């Protein structure tokens, strides 16, 4: 009974005290369709998804991060932060130990319910497209009490840089047909994926139509039949590409029009976050160089 009275008093006190705070409280709907209430601007943030970590930093709030997942590696200032597992195996204990007032994580990650049960505020977001990058940036800005104008300014900056990358490509390098391999299974990036959207804005054509879904698992034969002009792939997958049956005779393989990206470059390319302009520049460089190499070879 005493406990109940105690609890009631606490609630009443909170209600009275809370009125002023509630006026400023932000209610956000995250990608799980859960309404998240943030009463005060968070000062201690844990991010468990690299693109969200990068979004926080792009908004100039990097110093508020107190922990990140093991895959977050940009910007370099994060190197000294404690690592708290990954998306599928977040280390619950070490997250709670740093007393965060906001946990950012992917909707596909595990442990969101557990964090919520332990009294942490969880915002689950999953950027998957160009539009998502802007939307997620706005939500994170609202959560961190950064003015929306600021997030829009950062977004315009990124958007303009993507356009600039597109304009840097000479017209004869446009319209090339590209196959972007995401993983060795092989999974490719189609027109409807984040990577596909960037390629489209760079004026390249994708051999994988949007109807296949964003990252379809394809038959290797499909690529041979489609004869892409350029292949883009991470270093780790490039190694055995020529040994796949029939691939060494592909036009792009024979003329070495394959861009293989280093692993840190691959990170930039596949993350739907604020570094998408850098990704666009990497792809633009690839498209331009390979088109010129082709011309130089074909000219004599």
């Amino acid at each position: 009974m005493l406990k109940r009275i105690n609890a009631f008093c606490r609630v009443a006190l909170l209600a009275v005290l809370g009125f002023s705070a509630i006026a400023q409280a932000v209610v956000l709907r995250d990608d799980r369709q859960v309404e998240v209430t943030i009463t005060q601007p968070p000062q201690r943030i844990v991010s468990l998804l690299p693109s969200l970590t990068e979004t926080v930093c792009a908004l100039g709030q990097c110093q508020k991060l107190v922990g990140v997942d093991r895959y977050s590696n940009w910007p370099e200032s994060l190197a000294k932060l404690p690592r708290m597992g990954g998306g599928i195996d977040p280390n619950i204990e070490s997250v709670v130990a740093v007393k965060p007032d906001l946990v950012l994580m992917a909707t596909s990650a595990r442990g969101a319910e557990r964090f919520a049960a332990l009294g942490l505020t969880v915002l689950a977001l999953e950027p998957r497209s160009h539009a998502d990058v802007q939307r997620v940036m706005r939500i994170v800005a609202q959560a961190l009490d950064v003015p929306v104008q600021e997030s829009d300014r950062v977004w315009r900056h990124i958007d303009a840089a993507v356009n600039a990358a597109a304009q840097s490509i000479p017209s004869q390098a446009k319209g090339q047909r590209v196959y972007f391999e995401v993983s060795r299974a092989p999974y490719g990036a189609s027109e409807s994926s984040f990577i596909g959207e960037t390629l489209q804005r760079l004026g390249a054509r994708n051999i994988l139509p949007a109807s296949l879904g964003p990252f379809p698992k394809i038959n290797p034969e499909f690529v041979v039949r489609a004869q892409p002009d350029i292949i883009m792939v991470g270093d780790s997958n490039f190694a055995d590409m020529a040994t796949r049956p029939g691939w060494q005779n592909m036009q792009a393989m024979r003329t070495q029009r394959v861009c293989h990206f280093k692993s840190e470059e691959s990170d930039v390319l596949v993350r739907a976050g604020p570094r998408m302009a850098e990704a666009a520049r990497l792809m633009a460089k690839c498209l331009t160089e390979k088109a010129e190499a082709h011309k130089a070879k074909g000219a004599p």
Partner: protein
Amino acid sequence: MTYQGARCSARVVALGLLMLCALGIALGSAVGSTGIESWFSALHDDTAWQIVWDIRLPRSVGACAAGALLGLAGALAQGLFRNPLADPYLLGSASGASLGVAVALALFGGNPFAAEFLVRLGLTGAAFVGAVLAVLLTLVLARGVQHTLRLLLAGVIVGVVFGAVASLITLMRPDVLQGMQGFLLGSTSFIGWNACVLMLGVLLVCLVLAFALSRVLDALSLGESTALSLGLPLVPMRVALVCVLALATGTAVAQTGLVAFVGLAAPHLVRSVVKTQHNWIVLLSALMGGVLLLAADLLARLLLSPQEMPVGVLTAVLGGGYLLWLMYRSQTSRAAP
């Protein structure tokens, strides 16, 4: 499989295992990303208290309970099928649970209504539903429990088909791949008090039922026809045992994912130290399973601290290693008596 030198009394072993459980849970509250200092500062520091009381303790108790459920299910499966290779996942519950998780994960990205519904049900709910459906399908395909061989085959078929469908979903939706992998590896790190209470409750029910029904396992160990001639109501008792098996496995799998080998190894380890009737074997297997998973969970937290290893990997190494050693020892002692 028979072992030599099994002379301990069942009560002594039970007591020993219980003490090991208690010791493990105590240790479990002191080991983690920060170490034992959380334990001392827990009284005046809220976060340290939360870490010890809300994270480490439920996790350790939960690991013990999940291991006990698997050990119990393993003992029941090996008794029911009179096969030392039987394990709790035999009736297709593992693949059923993975299919449930795959479907849930695939729908998470889909329409908002499904997502909202599934958030409420949770991955654990989906896994449990999947596991129960798979066992039911196995029972339907085997047309009851009368024929052990048919039941075994139906279980294998359901397991393979459900597993294939789960793989197909993962292949079609690669964003599901990560979540699936986490589930397949098995993990004790997401267990809270609610899950603990649920598992302990189910464990209690299953233990009482299994203990009461264990006579049929003793009878079955003498052969099917002998069991029939003893006048036991074989069919209803078997159905009840299969239900207990499915309930125990489904509950454990839903909370911890696929933890390998505990269910297979625990009954063998018990039989290597005691020779007794099935009621004791069932009870001791549950305790042994609890100790096994608890030990694996402790090591998983300790070995790479402050990082963690997937506990399923460790159970296979621990249980498998010990079983191998037992087999080797019993072989050599038989060769040179």
